[in-house]
């Protein structure tokens, strides 16, 4: 079975632009979580979506938004990019909303110049 997949692998954007990152969970998994990992730090929780509804949100500004589609894939959108948004964005999937079994994707490396 395929694991969690994310696209694109790398992305370079300019300050002020908008970016969309995509995640496909493991088949059968209905929950997708997004994490931001700034260089040299551990991942920080951004969002969790379960059954197409937002179940949790971390301490991130409203420039960050996400959605989940009927096939349980998800998009993370970031508006008005700042240099500080440069990071590795990780997606994790799990079967249910509250699960200690999360499987991470390889991430999307976003560079904002």
């Amino acid at each position, binding site marked *: 079975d395929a694991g969690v997949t994310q696209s694109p692998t790398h992305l370079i954007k300019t300050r002020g632009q908008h970016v969309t990152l995509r995640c496909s969970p493991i088949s059968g998994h209905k*929950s997708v*979580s997004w*994490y931001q990992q700034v260089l*040299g*730090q*551990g*991942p*920080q*929780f951004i969002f*969790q979506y*379960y059954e197409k509804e937002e*179940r*949790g949100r*971390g301490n991130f500004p409203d420039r960050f938004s996400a959605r989940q589609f009927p096939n349980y894939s998800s998009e993370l959108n970031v508006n008005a990019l700042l240099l500080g948004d440069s990071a*590795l964005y*990780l997606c*994790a999937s*799990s079967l249910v*909303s*509250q*699960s*200690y079994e*999360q499987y*991470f*994707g*390889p*991430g999307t*490396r976003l560079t904002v110049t």
Partner: protein
Amino acid sequence: AQTVTQSQPEMSVQEAETVTLSCTYDTSESDYYLFWYKQPPSRQMILVIRQEAYKQQNATENRFSVNFQKAAKSFSLKISDSQLGDAAMYFCAYQRALYNFNKFYFGSGTKLNVKP
């Protein structure tokens, strides 16, 4: 708020030797999970080992074992017979149990170097 602290930014170990990575956490909850994740240069976060707080017995997975001290809020990872493939960033993580959504709190990581 829950916090996870890894006080060792970088450690080195000789191949075949044993190394212990430290982690402390802060929580007021009594039921939670603790994890060690490995992140190699490929960036994929890989689960190494998991510990349920209600279990007194320390978790073990082959060469990996933990020392879970609930009262001290300490959760260290011991890697025995270190191999070159163990070189990676290691993150300690906490998850509150019986909560209405998944949220992992991660430490800042420890970079493990394995010397041949």
